[in-house]
């Protein structure tokens, strides 16, 4: 299950709408091991394509170094489909390289509605999961 704050979902959807008809892409980083998608980082789609996305290679390096410095990991990797449903394609599955991440798909194929769905993609296997949208993420327990 993906637990995510409403504001983060709204920002992902806004990003997808902004980049439509090109696919939008980005990550939501959170503390390593926490499964908390706290920090949304929209990324440039270097492919600028309605059917393909790729993070620019130097943006990617900068992102991972920054997450490493902050002891974070990519909790969510998101992208949009602009003419098809919010379900991982063969391409999505073959390039999914973060086994611990929630892969969120946003579909902007309809102007009046949006689909937001989440999946685990591990070793080529896709498993859809529930998305629980909360007002804010619960504060982390400090015991």
């Amino acid at each position, binding site marked *: 299950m993906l637990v995510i704050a409403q504001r983060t979902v709204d920002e992902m959807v806004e990003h997808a709408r902004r980049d439509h008809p090109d696919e939008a892409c980005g990550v939501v980083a959170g503390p390593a091991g926490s499964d908390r998608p706290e920090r949304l980082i929209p990324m440039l789609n270097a492919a600028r394509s309605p059917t393909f996305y790729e*993070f620019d290679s130097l943006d990617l390096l900068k992102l*991972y170094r920054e997450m490493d410095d902050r002891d974070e990991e990519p909790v969510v990797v998101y992208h949009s489909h602009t*003419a*098809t449903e919010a379900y*991982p394609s063969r391409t999505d599955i073959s390039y999914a390289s973060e086994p611990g991440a929630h892969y969120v798909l946003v579909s902007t194929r309809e102007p009046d509605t949006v689909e937001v769905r989440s999946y685990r993609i591990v070793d080529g296997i896709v498993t859809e999961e529930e998305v629980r949208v909360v007002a804010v993420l619960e504060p982390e327990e400090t015991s």
Partner: protein
Amino acid sequence: MAIEVRIPTILRTYTGGEKAVAGEGATLADVLTDLDSRHAGLRERIVDDKGLRRFVNVYVNDEDVRFMGGLETALKDGDTVTVLPAVAGGAGEGRAGAASVRVTAGGAGVRDSAGG
């Protein structure tokens, strides 16, 4: 040359979970061959018979080796090599194993049932 090679999560199965390993070599190609001698199978995840794999990014310090010498990029003592799989994907040809949605060449989804 003593080189630190930073390994992405998905390739740490080859390094016993280590996120950085040490390698030796004057070029990127040499270092990858050297690593493979201790972490069998690692090289093949980065290189195929045509060279560096398209969707695996390799950097020396702050630069992408595609803009340097590729596999022949020269290394010096203390350089850091970083490997990061591309973050990529896209609707492309559409839903994996689609039964109810066919995708045309233009990328539009068409439902077999009414309402498409």
